[in-house]
């Protein structure tokens, strides 16, 4: 099915405002105007440090939300489940959004036939608070004066408004920032799903030839993706051309490079790896003892579909005073096959438990063992629900 195009919005304003060719926005606008979808979910910019999800049927609102926000590490999955499970909806999906939605579909919370996932390639997001610190400490800027941010050519660009109303652009290499503990979130640094292959379309700037800026590279992944693209072209909102071979090759190469980098980050940020068995035990007990059982990590988790009647809540009684609470033990256990490593849990944790690392350590080894990657195909049931073992032949041999 896979076909690659360069695409852009016909409407010059959309194209101008869009992160690349404004293709994503134009496609959603056309789908709304032609009644192809009932509703769209987009992200509105409050500031460079804050993006809020907006559910709307108004094409004008969608146009307002064009552009990429790297300081808004939200996951859109739960908004779809909560507010639009019955609607025909279109939305931009980073790889972790798409994977979350697929996991919810496996748990019968949403019907994928009604969801049009316009995937966005994703190199990663920044945590808003760390981004403010970064602006002050490394860029020497007043964080509130920053009006625009962009990530390109391996650098993070911050544009600030100076006293006289002039705009100033400062860029620092991502590598340099990340060596010092800033830059992208840990979950993003170590994420290997850079192209949302479980969406209907995958859009990004990788593969757009130099000099052809203001175009979006689009890969069509499913029949649904083809349908919404056709709708956008037929209604006159979008222009496309065949993607050049070297563009496709370039995109593949960049993806492979990013994946390699992610693998190396995994090692670098894993402080538990060097510990002995009992050291590991002490680390987990120590890290999780701070938990105040607010339930926020469960609330935002794009995989969890248990709502209020959840075993991790039911079986938890703080009066037990276990070394690690049932809540944490069960959340980790239940996610071993299904965690997509999006890091939402850590973002909302009020006591800063390193949940990204903990969840990844438990789930990654299990998933490797199972030969299973969650969030990729709705036809693959979570292995914990299965009757029979699902073993990865390779890991059996070891």
């Amino acid at each position, binding site marked *: 099915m896979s076909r690659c195009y360069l695409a852009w919005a016909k409407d010059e304003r959309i194209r101008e405002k869009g992160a690349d060719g404004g293709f994503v926005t134009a496609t959603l606008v056309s789908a709304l105007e032609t009644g192809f979808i009932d509703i769209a979910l987009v992200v509105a910019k409050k500031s460079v440090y804050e993006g809020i999800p907006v559910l709307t049927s108004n094409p004008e609102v969608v146009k307002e939300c064009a552009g990429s926000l790297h300081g808004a590490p939200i996951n859109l999955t739960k908004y779809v489940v909560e507010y639009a499970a019955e609607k025909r909806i279109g939305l931009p999906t980073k790889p972790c959004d798409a994977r979350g939605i697929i996991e919810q579909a496996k748990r019968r919370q949403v019907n994928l036939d009604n969801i049009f996932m316009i995937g966005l390639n994703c190199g990663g997001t920044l945590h808003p608070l760390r981004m403010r610190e970064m602006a002050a400490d490394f860029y020497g800027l007043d964080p509130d004066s920053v009006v625009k941010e962009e990530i390109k050519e391996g650098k993070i660009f911050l544009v600030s408004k100076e006293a006289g109303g002039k705009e100033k652009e400062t860029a620092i290499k991502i590598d340099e920032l990340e060596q010092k503990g800033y830059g992208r979130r840990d979950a993003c640094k170590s994420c290997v799903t850079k192209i949302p292959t479980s969406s209907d379309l995958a859009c990004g700037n990788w593969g757009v030839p130099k000099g052809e800026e203001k175009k979006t590279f689009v890969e069509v992944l499913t029949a649904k993706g083809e349908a919404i693209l056709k709708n956008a072209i037929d209604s006159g909102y979008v222009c496309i051309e065949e993607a050049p071979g070297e563009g496709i090759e370039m995109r593949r190469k960049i993806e492979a490079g990013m994946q390699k980098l992610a693998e190396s980050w995994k090692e670098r940020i894993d402080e538990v790896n060097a510990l002995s*068995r*009992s*050291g*590991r*035990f*002490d*680390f*987990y007990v120590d890290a999780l003892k701070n938990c105040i059982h607010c339930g926020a990590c469960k609330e935002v988790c794009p995989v969890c579909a248990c709502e209020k009647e959840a*075993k991790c809540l039911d*079986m938890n009684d703080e009066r*037990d005073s*276990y*070394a*690690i609470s*049932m809540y944490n*033990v*069960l959340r*980790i*256990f239940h996610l*071993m*096959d299904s965690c997509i490593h999006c890091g939402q849990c850590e973002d909302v944790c009020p006591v800063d438990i390193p949940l990204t690392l903990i969840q990844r*350590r*438990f789930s990654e*080894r*299990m998933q490797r*063992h199972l030969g299973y990657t969650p969030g990729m195909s709705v036809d693959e049931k979570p*292995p*914990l629900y*299965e*009757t*029979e*073992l*699902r073993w990865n032949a390779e890991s059996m041999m070891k």
Partner: protein
Amino acid sequence: MAEEEWEPKILAFCCNWCSYAGADAAGMERRQVPPTIRVIRVMCSGRIDPAFVLMGLLEGADAVLVTGCHIGDCHYVNANNKTRNRYEFLKEFVDELGLEPDRLWLRWISASEGALFADMVREVTEKIKKIGPSPLRRDWKK
């Protein structure tokens, strides 16, 4: 004060139709079974929610045994296949948490295998005596 010899506490889940009857058989045949074991009877090993095992460990059991009918003999079609699947998850969990792998066991024991039951308890007790008390153990008397 003279040090009392430390006795492991081992929690065993037994299914009503096979392994519990196996434990019974061990008694009927007057076999010596170490007194380290506490048995919880369930109707089928498929009833053993991994949460029960995890809670047993958190309560301080030095080892938890999951037992049931042999594969193919489960009295509820194939529920012990599910047990086997869940056990693999528990095994990974226990290992990653930093507990010794020997703190978790899976054994299939039929109603007539009293000897096997007694041997298992002996084997587990010996292993646990070697590795010592669980770091999760909570002894209130000091």
